[in-house]
C-alpha cells in the first residue's frame, strides 16, 4: 500500500496567523495538497492540489477507527467537491473505493492504520518545520497529537 501526500507550495495566504488559526482554518485553508493512495494495482490518488491534508488524515483516521463491525461502511467527503472515498470493513480488511476512480483496493486494517499514522507523523513534522508557529496553536496540537 502507498498512502502519502504532496504539500502544495502555496499553503496559506495569512502566514502570520498560524499560531491563532481556527479549527476551520486548519481543516479548510491550511496545508493543502495532493493525496496519494495506491494499493493492489488500484490508484485512488487525488492530485487536486487543494485537499486540506490535516483534515484528510484526521477525518480518515477517525473514520477507520469507527468501522468496528464486519460490513460497516463510511464515506469520506472531500471539502470542495462531491467526490468521496468509501471504506467498507470486510472482516480484518478494508475495501476502499472512490467516486472519482475505478477499482477497489482491499487492504488489511493494521496496514491502513500504520500508513495513516506515518502520513500523520510525516505531515506533522513537515508542517512544524515549515511553520514552527503551529506548535503554539492549541487546535493543531489537538488535531495532530502534538505533545505539550
Amino acid at each position: 500500500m502507498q498512502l502519502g501526500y504532496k504539500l502544495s507550495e502555496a499553503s496559506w495566504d495569512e502566514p502570520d496567523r498560524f499560531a491563532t488559526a481556527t479549527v476551520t482554518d486548519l481543516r479548510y485553508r491550511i496545508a493543502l495538497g495532493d493525496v496519494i493512495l495506491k494499493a493492489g494495482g488500484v490508484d485512488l490518488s487525488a492530485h487536486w492540489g487543494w485537499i486540506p491534508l490535516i483534515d484528510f488524515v484526521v477525518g480518515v483516521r477517525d473514520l477507520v477507527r469507527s468501522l468496528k463491525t464486519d460490513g460497516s461502511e463510511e464515506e469520506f467527503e472531500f471539502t470542495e467537491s462531491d467526490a468521496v472515498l468509501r471504506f467498507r470493513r470486510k472482516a480484518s480488511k478494508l475495501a476502499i473505493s472512490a467516486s472519482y476512480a475505478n477499482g477497489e483496493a482491499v487492504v488489511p486494517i493494521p496496514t491502513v492504520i500504520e500508513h495513516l499514522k506515518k502520513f500523520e507523523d510525516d505531515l506533522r513534522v513537515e508542517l512544524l518545520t515549515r511553520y514552527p508557529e503551529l506548535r503554539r496553536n492549541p487546535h493543531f496540537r489537538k488535531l495532530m497529537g502534538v505533545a505539550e
Partner: protein
Amino acid sequence: MKSGLRLQVPCWLLLRGFLVASMLAGVLTASQAQVGPGGSVTLTERAFHHIVARHWPTSDAPAAGKFAYGTTASSLQAMIDEAVAHGRMRPNTHGRPGAIIEYDFHHQIGTNTRGGPARRLRVVIGPENQVITAFPF
C-alpha cells in the same frame, strides 16, 4: 473571462460585510448542528475569494464543481440565500465544525466534478454561521 472581469473590483466592495439574512430555525434543530436557530449566514470577502479561486468558471482547480459562466457575485449571493432558506441542512462530517446545506435548483447552475451539468448547490457553514465554501454538484 467575462464573469471574471465582472468580478474584478466592485464585487469585493459589494460583498463586504454582506449578510445573507435567512433564518435557520426551520431547517435545523439545535442538536443537529452547531449553527444555532435564528442565526444568519455571513458571506465574507474572504469566503467569496475562496469560492472564486476554487469554483468560479475561470478557476483551474481540478475535481471541484464550477459555477456556470455568467454567474456574478450577486447571483451567487442569491443562490446561497435560497439554499439557506429552503435547503436541507445536516451536520458537517468527520468532526468538521459547522454544517452543510444542500439545495436542488432544478436547473443547471454549473458543472460537477466530472464536467457534467450540476443543479445542486452545497454550502458549507462554519460554527459562527459564516460561509466557508459553496459549490455546484
